[in-house]
């Protein structure tokens, strides 16, 4: 069976589902961050597949933009995690309840 557009979309959807479920299951801020990266990658795969099947370079440029945003998100997000860990001695998202009351 030759892989076609539907195969790539299916793989992308499965990866996105795993990432989305992981964000809910993980209690650890770094784990949630990695699941978000996985979801971004699933979307990138969709872009590249459409770019290939419609012979259009713009999809790949969009992937480039998504990767830049992911890199910026990694830098800022990990800075936030370090500041959070310094205050709470833990990176569990359940301890981030200072705004609750």
């Amino acid at each position: 069976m030759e892989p076609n557009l539907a195969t790539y979309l299916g793989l992308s959807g499965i990866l996105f589902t795993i990432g989305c479920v992981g964000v809910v299951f993980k209690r650890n801020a770094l784990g949630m961050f990695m699941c978000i990266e996985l979801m971004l990658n699933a979307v990138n795969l969709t872009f590249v597949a459409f770019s290939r099947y419609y012979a259009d370079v713009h999809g790949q440029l969009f992937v480039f933009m998504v990767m830049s945003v992911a890199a910026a998100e990694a830098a800022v997000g990990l800075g936030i995690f370090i500041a959070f860990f310094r205050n709470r001695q833990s990176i569990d998202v359940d301890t981030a309840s200072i705004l609750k009351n």
Partner: protein
Amino acid sequence: MVSTALFFLFAGFAIMCAISMVYHKNPLYSAISLVGVFLSLACIYLTLAAPFIAIVQILVYAGAIMVLVVFVIMLLNLDDEPNTSRLKYLYALGGGLGIVLLAQTLFVVYAVSRTPNQAIDPNVTVGNTLDIGRAMYTDYLLPVEIVGVMLLMAIVGSVVLARRLSQPQLELVIDKEEERISEEINS
């Protein structure tokens, strides 16, 4: 034929690594599984004739971002995540979400596979670096500039966030905050 076999090999590897990433409690194991996902996705991009994106995927994701994540895991010396009482509610929510998303995926695959297949012209290559570079510096000049400014802001922001205030500075901040609160109470 070979590319078909390679696609299914790497697709299976990507899915297995993704599941192992969610399954493992230790963040370091999760990070290593995620590197596996990134590498197999890079190989899938190669089967889609997108060499530039494949190389950038390895450089940016598997190189830069995952090194940063592993560095933070080592720096914070994280243990396995503890079990919390909210897990039962979360399992129900996550399971429901997963079923809905899988159903949507199945629907998309079904709908796309029913449409007449667009044949790929093997002579058309859209993913080489020349085409991407040309589009990037003509049609997409403004977005590329904006991305550059955004990366600069991210650098400055992460330095500001991760900076540790020295003890006198910290006391100054705390004093100001206490003054502000007492003024609020008095007024």
